[in-house]
């Protein structure tokens, strides 16, 4: 990991599931530039996919005319990802714990749990305009030997 790297990018995407791949590719490119360890990249991508999927499905109701805005920042071995949608927002505290035995067989409700498991910090805070946004932060381990060929 190049701890001196400061890299950032912004994406604006239509609310389509296939655009999750675009968001993933942008993050992977930044991780490659910064020399993130492969394991770190894997869990960052996993959390990002959940945040964007939530924005597309729950926030923007899969309306392609509504946009998802993503801001990436890698600074001093800390990766920060902000995902905004144009929906009504929600109360994350109202989401039941998916690891509670009575919820284990529920087919949904694990997206935010994924994000919290694979990032160090996850905060739901409104944008300046009052729209919903999630900010996720992961402190990535330095591991220059992890990635082959870089």
């Amino acid at each position, binding site marked *: 990991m190049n701890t001196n790297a400061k890299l950032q990018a912004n994406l604006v995407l239509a609310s389509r599931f296939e655009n999750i791949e675009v968001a993933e590719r942008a993050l992977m490119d930044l991780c490659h530039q910064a020399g993130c360890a492969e394991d770190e990249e894997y869990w960052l991508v996993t959390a990002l996919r959940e945040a964007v*999927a939530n924005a597309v499905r729950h926030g923007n109701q899969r309306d392609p005319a509504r946009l998802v805005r993503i801001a990436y920042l890698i600074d001093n071995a800390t990766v920060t990802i902000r995902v905004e949608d144009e929906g009504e927002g929600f109360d994350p505290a109202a989401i039941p714990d998916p690891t509670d035995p009575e919820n*284990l067989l529920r*087919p949904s409700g*694990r*997206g935010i749990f994924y994000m919290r498991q694979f990032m160090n910090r996850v905060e739901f805070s409104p944008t300046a305009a009052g729209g919903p946004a999630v900010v996720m932060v992961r402190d990535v381990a330095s591991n220059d030997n992890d990635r082959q060929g870089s």
Partner: protein
Amino acid sequence: MKSNTRDIGDTRIIELGGKITIGTGDVKIRELIAQALEADQQNILFDLGGVTAIDSSGIGEMVACYTTVTKRGGQLKLMHLSPKINDILQVTQLITVFEVFDDEREALGSF
């Protein structure tokens, strides 16, 4: 997501590869389970050896498939989990729901 199915006795082995993620992979595994049940194959063994990622929708669909198969009197089990897919099953505690195998012969003998 890629898939291949083969029947050994009364067990259908469904080999999955790539990403089991929202909008594609999750729908596909639902279809594969429906096809197995239509063919009266109620014992299902998901071979996840080629799976690179499972998002929350994919894992949710696997749970839904487990419930569907169990209600029909069958069993759904998993084999060949990569370390990362195993990590996901551990943190979600779904490792307590699914029977998991490393060896196909052992898995087939468990039905």
